[in-house]
C-alpha cells in the first residue's frame, strides 16, 4: 500500500505542474522547443563513451517550466549512433511505475546525425500524416544537457501504445492500443525482402521486436507473422487480395510504399539493403496488420528517384503490385502525393529551416559543418518542385496518360 501511495504521489507531483499543457504543445511543430536534461556528469560521460550500449541513466527533464524527475535516458539508433552527439530515448516510467508526462511514457531525441539539413525526418513525417499514413508527431528542440547546449534534435513521438491509441482511436469506448506492436529490426548482413524463412518462429523473432504483450506465447506473437509471410510467398495472384487482405491492410500498404517512393527514401521498406525503418502493428482483436512510418531521415535522396525503384525485389511489394487494382492505386497515390507536395512541401521546408536555422548553426556537436548544412538546405529546397515534375511525368508514362507539359 505504501508503495502504491509513493507511486501515486510521484505521478501527481510530476503531472500537476503540467496542467494546461498537452502533447500537442510538446510536439507543436510551429515552435522550436527547449528541452533540458540534468544528469550526473559521469553518467553523461559514460553514456557518450558507451554510446553503442542501451544502458539507462537517471536524469531530470525540464520542458516549458515543468520538471519531470527520475526519467531514464539511453543512447539509441542504428547507423545514427554517435558518441559526440548521442541520439536519446527518454523513458518516463523507467524508475517509477506509471510515471507519465502529458500522457506520454517516452519520447525520442533524434540527433539528426545522418540528416545534414535537419528537416528531412520532420518534413517526411508531416507529409505522411497529410497523406493519412500513421506516423509519429515530430518537431525540433534545442537540447541542453547539464545547462550546456548539446545541439539541435528532432523531438519524436515514440511509437507505442499511446500513439496507437491516438492513431487508431477507440471503438465503443475501447482504445485500440492493445494489439501487437513490432519494431522491425534490421539484421546487419542479412537483408530481407519478405521471403519465406521457414515455419520456425526464430527468424521472425529476430526481425520483429515485440513492443507490446511481450509475455504472450510466442505462437500468439510471431505465429501470425510467419503465416503472413508464408501466405504472401505461396498465394497465387488469383486469390492474393482475398487471402492476404485478411492479414494485411493492402490499400494502406500500397499508400505507404508509394509515399516512401515519392520522398525518395532509399532506406525504407523497398530499401537498398532490404526492408528497414518501420513499425508493424496487428490491430487489437484482429488478424490484420498495418505499417507505421519510422525513421525517414534518409529521405529526399534525388528528385529523379525512379518511381518503380526496386518494386520487383520485395516479394510483398511485387505480388501486391502485380494486381492491376493495387498497381493503379500505387500510381494514384504518387499523383496525390505530387499534388500535395506541390502546394505544401517547399513552403513547409522553408518554414522549418527558418525555425531551426540559428539552432543548427550554433549546434556544437553536429557531425557536419555549417557550410555542409547550408548546401544541403539549398539542395533540399530545390527538391519538391523537381520531384513533383518528375513524378507527374513518370506516372503519366506508367499509366499511359497524356504527359504534363515539360515532360521529356
Amino acid at each position, binding site marked *: 500500500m505504501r*508503495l502504491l501511495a*509513493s*507511486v501515486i*504521489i*510521484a505521478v501527481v*507531483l*510530476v503531472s500537476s505542474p503540467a496542467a494546461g499543457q498537452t502533447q500537442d504543445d510538446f510536439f507543436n511543430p510551429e515552435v522550436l522547443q527547449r528541452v533540458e536534461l*540534468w*544528469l*550526473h*556528469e*559521469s*553518467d553523461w*560521460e*559514460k553514456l557518450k*563513451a558507451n554510446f553503442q550500449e542501451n544502458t539507462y541513466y*537517471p*536524469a*531530470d527533464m525540464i520542458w516549458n517550466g515543468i520538471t519531470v*524527475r*527520475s526519467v*531514464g535516458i539511453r543512447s539509441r539508433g542504428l547507423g545514427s549512433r554517435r558518441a559526440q552527439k548521442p541520439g536519446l530515448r527518454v523513458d518516463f516510467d*523507467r*524508475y*517509477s*511505475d506509471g510515471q507519465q508526462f502529458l500522457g506520454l511514457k517516452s519520447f525520442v531525441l533524434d540527433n539528426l546525425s545522418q540528416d545534414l539539413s535537419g528537416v528531412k525526418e520532420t518534413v517526411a513525417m508531416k507529409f505522411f500524416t497529410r497523406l493519412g499514413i500513421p506516423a509519429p508527431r515530430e518537431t525540433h528542440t534545442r537540447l541542453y544537457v*547539464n545547462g550546456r547546449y548539446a545541439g539541435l534534435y528532432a523531438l519524436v513521438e515514440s511509437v507505442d501504445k499511446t500513439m496507437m491509441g491516438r492513431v487508431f482511436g477507440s471503438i465503443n469506448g475501447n482504445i485500440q492500443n492493445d494489439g501487437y506492436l513490432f519494431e522491425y529490426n534490421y539484421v546487419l548482413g542479412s537483408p530481407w525482402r519478405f521471403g519465406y524463412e521457414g515455419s520456425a518462429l526464430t527468424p521472425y523473432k529476430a526481425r520483429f521486436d515485440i513492443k507490446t504483450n511481450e*509475455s*504472450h506465447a510466442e505462437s500468439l506473437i510471431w505465429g501470425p507473422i510467419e503465416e503472413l509471410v508464408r501466405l504472401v510467398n505461396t498465394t497465387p495472384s488469383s486469390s492474393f487480395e482475398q487471402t492476404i487482405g485478411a492479414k494485411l491492410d493492402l490499400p494502406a500498404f500500397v499508400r505507404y510504399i508509394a509515399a516512401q517512393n515519392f520522398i525518395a527514401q532509399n532506406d525504407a521498406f523497398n530499401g537498398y539493403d532490404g526492408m528497414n525503418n518501420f513499425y508493424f502493428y496487428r490491430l487489437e482483436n484482429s488478424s490484420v496488420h498495418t505499417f507505421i512510418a519510422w525513421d525517414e531521415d534518409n529521405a529526399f535522396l534525388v528528385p529523379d528517384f525512379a518511381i518503380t525503384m526496386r518494386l520487383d525485389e520485395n516479394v510483398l511489394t511485387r505480388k501486391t503490385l502485380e494486381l492491376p487494382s493495387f498497381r493503379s492505386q500505387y500510381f494514384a497515390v504518387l499523383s496525390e502525393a505530387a499534388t500535395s507536395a506541390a502546394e505544401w512541401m517547399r513552403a513547409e521546408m522553408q518554414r522549418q529551416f527558418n525555425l531551426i536555422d540559428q539552432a543548427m548553426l550554433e549546434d556544437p556537436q553536429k557531425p557536419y559543418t555549417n557550410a555542409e548544412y547550408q548546401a544541403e538546405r539549398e539542395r533540399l529546397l530545390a527538391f519538391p518542385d523537381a520531384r513533383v515534375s518528375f513524378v507527374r511525368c513518370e506516372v503519366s508514362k506508367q499509366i499511359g496518360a497524356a504527359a504534363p507539359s515539360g515532360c521529356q
Partner: protein
Amino acid sequence: MKGPLFLAVMALATLATPALAQDRRGLVWDNRPSIVFGEDINIDLRGRAQFDWRKFDPQREEEEFDVRTLRIGLKGNLTEHLDWEIEREIAELYDEGATEDQIDLGLVEPKWRFGQWKDVFINWTTFDALSLKGGRFKMPFGLEQNTGVSDLDFAYRTFGSNKIAPGRDRGVMVYGDVLDGALLYEAGVFDDDGDNAEFSLEQFVLEGEDLQDAGPSFAARVVGEIFRGLPVPDRLKGAEVGIAYTQSDVPEGLNSLFGEDPFGFDFFERVYVKGRRQRTGLQFDWSPQSLGFRAEWMQSREQRLGQSNRNENLSDYIGTAWYGSATWLVTGEDKDSDVTPNNPLFQGGVGAIEIGARYDQLSFKSANTEGPAFRNPRSEHLLSNTVKQVTFGANWLVNRWVKVVANAIRQSYEDPERAPRVLGAETFGPTDFWSGLLRLQILF
C-alpha cells in the same frame, strides 16, 4: 556426477572408525587424511561439498539442482604457536573473456575448474589475550557470517549475513580473549571491504583518472558473556552478546551493497554511492544444552556524496537486516560446540537430528523518505524494498562427515516489480514464494 557422489556418500557413511593418529607419523587418518611430521607439525587435507535439490512454488526461473559448494583445502600447524589454512573453491566457470551475449546465447560452456580462494591465512596463537592473524579470512563482523558454511543451522545464511556482513578479505587482525575467556575482542585492517561488497560492475573513470577500489577498511568486534557476573540463572550465564563495527571508503559508482536472495535474484540493485560506508552489528548467541538461540541485527550506511542528477549530495543509503532463530537437537547432543552425533549411523544410532525455525529480513532504503520515491539509483528518496523470510529446517547429521539438510522457505517481497519472476507470468508478482530444499553435505 551422481555415480561418484553416491559412492562417496556410502564410503563416508561407513567410515566410522575411530581416529588413529595419536603417536603416529607420516600419512594417517585423523577423521580426514593427514600428514603428521611431529608433535605440532601436521597438514590435514580438507574438503567439503554441498549438493542441493530445490523446488519452487510458484515456479521460478532458477535451476532445480545446484552444486552449492565444492571446496578443497589444507590446514595445519607449523609449531605449537602457529597454524595455517588454505582453501579454494571448485566451480563451473566460463573462460575469461566470455561475454554476456555469448553466455546468454549458449555459445560458450562453463567448465569445472579452480575458482575463488577462500581462507588463506596464518595464525599466531602464543597468548590467549593477544593473537595475530594475517592473510585472507573473514572480517570480524556477523555471527552467522563467521560460522562456516558446513556448520550453519539452516541451508542458507540470512539475507543480512550474506549482503551486509562483509565476509572475507585480505588483512591483518589482532584478537584474543580476556577476563578468563568472558570477553573476546577482534580488530583488523583489511585491503578492500569484503567479498560480499565486491564491485560487480565495470568501473568507469574519466580520462586521466585511476580506477579505485573500496577500502582499506577497519573492522572490530567485541563479544562478551555479559551475564556471567550477574545474578541470573546459570544457564543464561553462557549467553554471548556482541557488538561489531566496520568502516571504509567507497569510490564513486554503482558500488553500493545490494539485495540478492539465496537463489541469485537481485531484489535491490546497486545505487550510486561515494564516501564512507559503515556497518554496525549486534549479536546474541545462547546455547543451553541441546537448544540454540541466535539473533543478529545489522545496518549498513553509505554516503552518496555528489551523486544526484545535479551532482549534489544525496541522503545516505541504508540497509537494515535482522533475524532470530531457535534450534533443538532432538537427539540430545550439546549445541555449544561442534555438533558431532553421539551415536552415528551404523554405530548403534541414527546420527543426530536437529530441528529449527528462523525469521529474517533485509531492507534497503534512503535516509530521506520524504517526497516521491523512485527506483532511480540516484534518487534522493529511494523506493524501498524489503524481503522477509521464514525458514523451517531439519538437519540429519549422519556422522561427522555426512549431513542431510531439509528446509522449507517462505519469502515475501514488498515491491512486486522487484520480486522474482515467475515462469510464464504475464505481469509482475506474486510477491510470496515457497521454496523447498534438500541438501546433501559431505565434509572431511
